[in-house]
């Protein structure tokens, strides 16, 4: 079982290839879209590369869930994720650290959940 540092190192090199960014710009706290400039198509590319790099299977929508809140209108109210929505989020993304998001669950902040650390934690869970 690789250490968190080893996983982070491999995740970083994966992101360098997928997003054409410099390795020194990648930190655990970097957000994929805001800090590293990922676009929607890049998420699928990242999934493909992680599968190859770590020899794992990542089912569709598991690491980067699509349309989490479209299933129920009660998940979002006035641009904020409701308690019911947060519960759904915890179930769909048990590997995500929601502590900051829960303080201000604005939909506009949702993309900040997708960080390098989130990927690292997900991979750790997959490999354990």
């Amino acid at each position: 079982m690789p250490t968190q540092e080893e996983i982070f190192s491999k995740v970083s090199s994966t992101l360098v290839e997928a997003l054409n960014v410099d390795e020194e710009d990648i930190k655990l706290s970097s957000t994929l879209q805001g800090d590293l400039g990922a676009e929607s198509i890049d998420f699928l590319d990242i999934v493909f590369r992680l599968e190859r790099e770590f020899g794992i299977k990542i089912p569709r929508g598991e690491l980067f869930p699509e349309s989490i809140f479209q299933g129920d209108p009660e998940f979002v109210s006035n641009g904020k994720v409701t308690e019911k929505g947060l519960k759904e989020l915890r179930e769909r993304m048990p590997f995500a650290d929601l502590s900051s998001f829960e303080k201000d669950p604005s939909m506009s902040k949702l993309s900040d959940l997708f960080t390098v650390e989130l990927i690292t934690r997900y991979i750790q869970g997959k490999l354990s």
Partner: protein
Amino acid sequence: MRWIWIDRFIEFNSGKSAKAIKCLSMAEDHYARHFAGYPVMPACFILEGLAQTGGILVGEANAFKEKVVLAKVPRAIFHREMFPGEVLTYETEVLILRPEGASVSAKVTVQGEVTVEAEIFFAHLDQSRSKELFGESNFVFTGEFRHLLERMTRKS
């Protein structure tokens, strides 16, 4: 009208790899302006030829049922310019093939010399959304195109 940038397939291993050739001819219009007095095959057309070779490889793997679209070229290195009179061999190999899309490694060789190395990423248009937008027909791999493909893969 389709703009085909490969002349013929010379190898095809379903779901694994494909090799096609493109003969560069001075008669092609683009050399008049690219560049005047110094005809060079435009790099974008070479990439398009590689993407067509890889895209057909990916499409055939699913019996041409998916709408395969070029999504991204994460890496492309051109080692030199290519000129009329040269025959380019486009070689593509499937790296990953999934219901959502595929990624292929690709290279161009000219008489064994590697002139381009690239990686190309294809997406399958989302089944439900593409039906809404384009209907049932597969505009990527039309009947006319598949007929043309049969001619391009026929052994001479």
